[in-house]
């Protein structure tokens, strides 16, 4: 998508970013240094009561991980975004995001007063502040996705964080299938090992892309997705 890149910026670690990603454009997230985590949440900007639904996303595609070919479903049976490129292979949809208590317990307290903009931030507060700018609040914040992080589930259901999942330069691209309010937070994954507060930066780019063709890999991924695309196209009739 480089040829039609319209915008690029770097989001530092621990920050929150939002944008209304228009239908017909795609967002590329690049893990600049490796080991980044991007908690992400999505809403239909035109009807914000319609938002990302994690269970519907997982069960429609029979998956507990996300990668190229998968799509992100709303609670209304429509597709917010499609994963059209991915050099990572596994993004975690299970573990949610960090909160203030957790970050303080794990990394210690670092207030704005003493640390200025190196203070210890957490994803929940970041999301709530950002949602507030759109007139939304905690009741609107549901389950999220962690891009670049991998958490596997063993035979008895135990969760295992897999370090080293995302190498420097890894990227994932999301194509907007509707005008999607995208909220991103670059705090560390809540299960990331270690006690050092060191959230990594992510480069975000926006490009214009073609609409999904009749044999688009996300559409063809499963029969459920074929119907999901049809119902999304119906929304724009």
């Amino acid at each position: 998508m480089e040829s039609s890149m319209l915008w690029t910026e770097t989001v530092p670690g621990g920050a929150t970013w939002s944008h209304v990603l228009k239908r017909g454009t795609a967002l590329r997230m690049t893990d600049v240094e490796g080991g980044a985590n991007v908690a992400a949440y999505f809403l239909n900007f035109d009807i914000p009561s319609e938002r990302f639904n994690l269970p519907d996303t997982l069960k429609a595609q029979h998956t507990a991980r996300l990668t190229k070919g998968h799509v992100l479903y709303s609670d209304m049976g429509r597709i917010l975004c499609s994963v059209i490129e991915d050099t990572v292979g596994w993004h975690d949809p299970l573990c949610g995001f960090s909160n203030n208590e957790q970050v303080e317990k794990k990394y210690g307290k670092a207030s704005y007063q003493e640390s200025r903009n190196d203070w210890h931030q957490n994803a929940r507060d970041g999301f709530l502040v950002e949602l507030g700018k759109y007139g939304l609040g905690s009741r609107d914040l549901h389950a999220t996705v962690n891009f670049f992080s991998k958490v596997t589930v063993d035979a008895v259901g135990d969760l295992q964080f897999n370090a080293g999942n995302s190498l420097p330069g890894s990227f994932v691209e999301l194509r907007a299938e509707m005008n999607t309010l995208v909220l991103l937070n670059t705090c560390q994954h809540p299960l990331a090992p270690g006690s050092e507060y060191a959230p990594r930066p992510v480069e975000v780019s926006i490009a214009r892309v073609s609409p999904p063709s009749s044999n688009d890999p996300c559409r063809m991924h499963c029969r459920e997705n074929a119907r999901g695309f049809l119902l999304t196209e119906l929304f724009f009739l």
Partner: protein
Amino acid sequence: MATSILQSSQMLPGDALHSFVVEAGNPFLFEIWKGQVVRIVDLEGNQAVDTLFYNAHDYADRYSAQDTIREQGNVYLTTGTRLISSNGNVLLTITADTCGRHDTLGGACSTESNRVRYDLSKGHMHACRQSFMKGIQEWGRGLEKRDIASNINFFMNVPVTPEGGLTFEDGVSDAGKYVELRAEMDVLMVISNCPQLNNPCNGYNPTPVQILIWDTNVQ
């Protein structure tokens, strides 16, 4: 923690303060006070009981599936699981479980997701979100669609594989199996007794469940 901790309860149905039967396809809302114990009985077996919990005094503070599985380090719910709210509070603890495994990844069915998952023509079949919407509208007190978060599916079996696959399997439950929870704070319980006919979560035959509530504070 282990995936399945079978634990029976000493509570006697005859001592229960309340007993309700929730028919298949119906919503059920009830407040459970701190210290009270609620039991959900799978009367006929293989029934999925879609359940949400809220802080009874602040509905914005509600059951969070992601916080619950992350804090216990395991995707399945069983004896000992603490149900964590979006604000990090412990809403209830599972104190007994004769089924052994409950799901919190599969969410609730909706007429919209039924169109995606099964067929465009399936959008008129009864679904859990219809029951949730009806239930919260009748309850009032400001609950809206946005308050319907990812739920628990008691008695439902949704295994995750080490490769990241997710499947809906036949239930591991059977007639008379139950799960029991102790309220750690005042909570509102919102149930949709699942009417799904398109997959094995109910054995293709939705059936009633029983709700028993004990007041341990006065015993």
